[in-house]
């Protein structure tokens, strides 16, 4: 497959793409509308989380604004028994996995390093160390291969991540063992303040070919095309044909995180250019033209989004602070003498501050 795969153009026209059509043959209007709702909801989650951060309720939030199609299109292509290893920005993928909005913000409120149990949703804790998770995905895929099931491991990462040794080593291992893993790279054009051309002088997708891994470049703002190529890649993996690399060409319309100020390093014109390609607008245009998205259904979607946002806010504000002694929990699976000693001493220390007679 060469060239950028697209099924819905920026202005909302359905384009033919014989190579991949078959992968979304089942996506009728109803399911498209569901994808639309997903995207609206996750955008709303972003807005609400950003507001919560501004209000001091979250320490930080990494918005995915602009990347809704890349994440929903791929996230909705996955099977429950596939396993996702993602970075900090894949909140929409997590949403697709059924992770609650409250769980999404636990980490950013600072109450835990992991918002959920990875095995409950088959999605690992978002990875902060750039690129590290691509190796975990590859290793998990080797496990799948050993067991002989047809599940797939999926690694999400950014354009910047492709520079890290780990991501390249992951491709070496995946190719060498023909591991059932999909490398899903969201090229959102930026790694904080660094444009993608600093990471690569050639298309990101070309990288994969150098490892003997088939690569697909897809319009990352086209939810249908993303779903099609992801399904294709998953299917290759399920059939034992090994890894596939997907470059979803998209754009980070917001700041890197709420701590970032992108006006320091990028031109307003660039943002404007990408706003025209907005993944939600284009699907809305298409669905309106087909009469699927009506004022009524649109309002229903917005209501759902508002409900989710309210749930997020309530969930976030309801999060309890962890207990001091939880510091010492789960560092080791088995008892550890030194840590137990530290815990005991800290407990005695804390008890000094308690009114005489109080117990803990």
């Amino acid at each position, binding site marked *: 497959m060469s060239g950028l795969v697209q099924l819905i153009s920026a202005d909302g026209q359905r384009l033919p793409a014989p190579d991949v059509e078959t992968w979304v043959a089942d996506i009728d209007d109803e399911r498209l509308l569901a994808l639309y709702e997903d995207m609206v909801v996750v955008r709303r989650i972003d807005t609400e989380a950003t507001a919560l951060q501004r209000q001091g309720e979250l320490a930080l939030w990494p918005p995915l604004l602009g990347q809704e199609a890349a994440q929903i299109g791929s996230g909705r292509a996955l099977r429950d028994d596939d396993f996702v290893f993602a970075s900090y920005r894949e909140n929409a993928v997590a949403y697709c996995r059924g992770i609650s909005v409250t769980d999404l913000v636990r980490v950013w409120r600072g109450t835990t390093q992991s918002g959920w149990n990875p095995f409950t949703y088959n999605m690992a804790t978002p990875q902060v*160390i750039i690129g590290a998770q691509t190796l975990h995905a590859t290793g998990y895929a080797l496990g799948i291969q050993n067991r002989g099931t047809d599940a797939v491991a999926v690694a999400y990462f950014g354009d910047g991540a492709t*520079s890290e*040794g780990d991501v390249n080593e992951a491709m070496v291992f995946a190719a060498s063992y023909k591991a059932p893993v999909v490398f899903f790279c969201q090229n959102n054009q930026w790694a*904080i303040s660094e444009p993608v051309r600093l990471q690569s002088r050639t298309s990101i997708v070309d990288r994969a070919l150098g490892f003997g891994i088939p690569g697909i470049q897809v319009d990352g703002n086209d939810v249908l095309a993303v779903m099609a190529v992801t399904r294709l890649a998953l299917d290759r993996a399920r059939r034992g044909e090994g890894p596939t690399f997907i470059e979803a060409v998209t754009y980070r319309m917001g700041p890197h995180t709420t701590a970032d100020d992108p006006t320091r390093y990028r031109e307003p014109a660039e943002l404007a250019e990408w706003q025209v390609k907005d993944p939600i607008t284009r699907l809305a245009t298409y669905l309106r033209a087909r009469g699927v998205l009506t004022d009524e259904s649109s309002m229903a979607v917005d209501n759902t989004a508002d409900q989710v946002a309210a749930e997020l806010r309530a969930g976030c504000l309801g999060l309890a602070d962890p207990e001091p002694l939880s510091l010492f929990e789960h560092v080791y699976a088995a008892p550890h003498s030194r840590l137990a000693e530290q815990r005991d001493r800290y407990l005695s220390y804390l008890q000094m501050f308690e009114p005489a007679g109080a117990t803990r």
Partner: protein
Amino acid sequence: MTTSTMTLSKAINAGLRRSMENDDTVILMGEDIGKLGGVYRITEGLQESFGPRRVMDTPLAESGILGTAIGLAYAGYRPVCEIQFDGFIYPAFDQIVSQVARMHSRTRGAVTVPLTIRVPFGGGIGSAEHHSDSPEAYFTHTSGLRVVSVSNPNDAYWVIQEAVASNDPVLFFEPKRRYHVKGEVELDEAELDEVRPPMGAAHVLVEGTDVTLVTYGGLVQVALDAARAASADGISIEVIDLRSLSPLDFETVTRSVQKTGRIVITHEAAESGGLGAEVAAGITERAFYFLQHAPVRVTGFDIPFPPAKLEKYHLPDLDRILDGVDRALDRRNSLSELG
């Protein structure tokens, strides 16, 4: 004397600027250090002044940054590498430990690697995972490296220049939680010898007679606060800012302990194998007969840095330091008595 009031972050910026003005082989490298000026703005304005070849935004690869910096050192340059956060130095560990630290001795002195590795470090700012580590002990155990930390703007301004000028590789640990704290900086070159803290020397910040309190980086201010609080209780604490973590200035610490007979060491990093172990072992070797009590360590626990809401319990604070002081003074049971 020309002095100026500035934040610690601005002082590093000013020190770097001066190093770059004085020596055009000084090159800054790192992620987002150019237009953005770094996520902490330490390099703000420097790319504008010196251009993109001397203030290089690098691809997102820490081993790549350190490895290419070594090549630049071979070519006669003096690279200053920014590691964006403490927790991101580990991908570069191999290049640092096996290359940066060993190149000079490997080549029997033929190659010098006058690298500075700037690392914003430590907790106390409510950050996400991997943004609050204190990895200094990995490097103080690595022969061939020098390791320093700073706690105030004046030291920052001068020590960064010394680090850059050093022909040995230097890890320069910047306490993030102190970036925005202001202080006087002596800018005058004429008075250099008086104001410039010699790299490698600890600094007695407060003299005292009852107990020596040793620390560095982000906890220096907490130690000073503890000393003030203790003095209200009639306890006289001598506060030492190590500044140099490798080599350690045992001369200064030993002199102090010979006077006080008691020592508390505090740092954010885990206790086991942390810098406190080395200070405790070293001071026991050097001042055994002066010690009235075993050296006391007040440190982060032996756990991965906890989530933000828990860091206040993990990090040594005024109360925990004073508790340590009490133990050193036998005013409270210590480990040996707890069994």
